[in-house]
């Protein structure tokens, strides 16, 4: 019935809080061994969706399978095969690093527990600090501890909620190396992020805004299906042109990147005509690759138009 190659296969997942639909009929297919990125503005329902996948929240509607088990009826089996790293650090701050790992290992019934915990501490480079209370760790170290803890029981699926928020670039690079190594080993990773460079490191992406899944696919597919064409406007004084460029016929959005402006539009011919008609001295206008960031900003703007339609009309 279900594709054995899919780690996650859900349809129509919905969650409401009162009259507020936080996740609206979201369907998602994630292949085994894939790194899947979840993007979207704050409050768009990413955390809520992850929580429903690992049985922390019950969906109000929808169904599906996670690792081959029924999402609604086999939450217990799913839990023991999923590693979940929460957005906010949720290990015990009054337990030491080692005690936290030991607790998790016991709870998951990890075989050969002392050795597993010891190895985990070694890999983290925390063997010397293992007696330190988890609450005393810096944000980056907490993140690493949480990731290590979610891996202790050799899960088949990793759900990581903003695993790199507030982490320095070096730690972020280490983290991504680890994620790719895990995926190469067959583990499926579903993570949420706000960083574009991280989005580009994912095999596939989904974009969620205000509960709706707006787009999904590989980074290249997302760029292609967005229908956006982009020009870069470069030169001194470019930044001052933002509002003027936004008025151009055919320009859907103008995004500044330092001294460079990305002007994108879905009607390529019209936008190109407007841009060439500008004829600004000292500015260089050239076609550019549409980036993921342009696509996501476009998606967000569009959904805001729909979402806040009433506000605009008034």
């Amino acid at each position, binding site marked *: 019935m279900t594709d054995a190659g899919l780690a996650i296969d859900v349809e129509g997942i919905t969650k409401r809080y009162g009259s507020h639909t936080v996740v609206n009929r979201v369907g998602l297919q994630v292949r085994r061994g894939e790194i899947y990125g979840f993007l979207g503005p704050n409050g768009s329902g990413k955390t809520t969706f992850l*929580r429903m996948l*690992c*049985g*922390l*929240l*019950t969906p109000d509607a929808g169904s599906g399978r996670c690792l081959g088990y029924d999402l609604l009826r086999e*939450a*217990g*089996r799913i*839990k*023991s095969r*999923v590693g*979940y790293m*929460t957005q*906010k*650090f*949720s*290990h*015990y*701050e*009054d*337990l030491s690093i080692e*005690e936290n790992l030991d*607790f*998790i290992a*016991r*709870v*998951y*019934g990890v075989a050969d527990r002392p050795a597993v915990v010891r190895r985990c501490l070694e890999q983290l480079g925390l063997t010397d600090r293992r007696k330190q209370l988890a609450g005393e760790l810096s944000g980056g170290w907490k993140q690493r501890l949480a990731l290590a803890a979610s891996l202790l029981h050799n899960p088949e699926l990793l759900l990581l909620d903003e695993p790199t928020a507030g982490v320095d670039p070096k730690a972020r690079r280490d983290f991504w190396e680890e994620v790719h190594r895990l995926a190469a080993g067959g583990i499926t990773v579903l993570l949420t992020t706000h960083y574009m460079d991280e989005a580009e490191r994912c095999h596939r992406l989904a974009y969620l805004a205000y509960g709706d899944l707006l787009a999904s696919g590989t980074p290249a597919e997302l760029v292609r299906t967005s229908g956006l064409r982009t020009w870069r406007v470069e030169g001194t004084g470019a930044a001052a042109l933002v509002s003027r460029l936004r008025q151009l016929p055919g320009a859907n959005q103008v995004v500044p990147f330092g001294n460079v402006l990305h002007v994108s539009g879905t009607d390529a011919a019209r936008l190109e005509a407007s841009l060439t008609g500008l004829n600004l001295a000292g500015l260089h206008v050239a076609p550019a690759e549409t980036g993921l960031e342009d696509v996501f900003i476009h998606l967000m703007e569009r959904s805001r138009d729909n979402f806040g339609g009433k506000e605009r009309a008034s």
Partner: protein
Amino acid sequence: MTSPFSLSRFWAMVLKEFVQMRRDRLTFGMMVGIPLLQLILFGFAINSDPKHLPAAVVNADPGPFSRNLVSGLQNSGYFDIRGGGGTPAQVRRLLDLGQVQFVLSIPSDFSSRLLRGERPEVLLEADATDPAATGNAIAALQQLAEIAVARDLTGPLSRLRRDEPPFELRIHRCYNPEAVTQYNIVPGLMGVVLTMTLVIITALAITRERERGTMENLLATPLRPAEVMLGKIVPYILVGYVQISLILVAARYLFDVPLLGSLMLLYAVSLVFIAANLAVGLTFSTLARNQLQAVQMAFFFFLPSILLSGFMFPFRGMPGWAQGVGEVLPLTHFLRLVRGILLKGNGPAECLPHLWPITLFLAVMLAVGLKRYRKTLD
């Protein structure tokens, strides 16, 4: 695959709770400190030998025997005789105002009737609102007064020394004729301390996990509700036993409370009572939104427990509805159990009628708690 109850997961929970308990100095201090503090505070009320109790004397007798009686009382150290002048009504007013605890009235013909061998009456009015304090002074008075007077009956008067005292001491226990003995208090304290500390501690147990955000992690693991609940109960059962032992030692060596029955039996029945309190706390913990609410709920449970269980007021003196509420509370039955075992030397057979109501309460509370324990964050 995922068994409904796994001993190793449960044990992981127990170990974790122990470590956290050890780290939480404040709570740990509370668990040992509250029994000690209460014992010391209540210790004054159950002081078996309070001295220098304020007393007033209305002495209408000019004779030597009454004077000797009064100075004998004074010298005993039990009574601090103050005032004395004034009409009987004025002196009696001192008792009303609580300025003296005793009023001793000696009739004008005391000495003369004593000499005639007529056994005159001496009236002692005692403020018995605090029977624990007055009871022993009264007992002491009876003996002391007889000795003080008998000492004077020498020579030709020695014929007046008979087996029965030469005068009659009449005692009026005012305000609280049903004297509760001190022994009620220490065993009662055991139940009160357990109720107070254990309910609050466990009421915080799950709310704290939720407030600190660790609940999200806990729920994502294969831990089952029963494993979490029991894992949180078991460490505190040990705490309860430490508290019981503290109080027993104090009862025996500080306050000379007789320990007639089997301590083994006491420890055994306490298990059910401790577990019942912990289950109440855990249930509150699943209902409360935050730690403050949890503490408030614990307090609302504590109040009727202390007021309607027979700890504060004699159970039989309460109106029917209050007795009805009291019968539901574990503390009520535990007080009967402890008093029965310690003071009357009751055995298992006598304990059973009070044990099953606590067991029933425990079962219901656990069921409610388990039902209310949310397996999800919804």
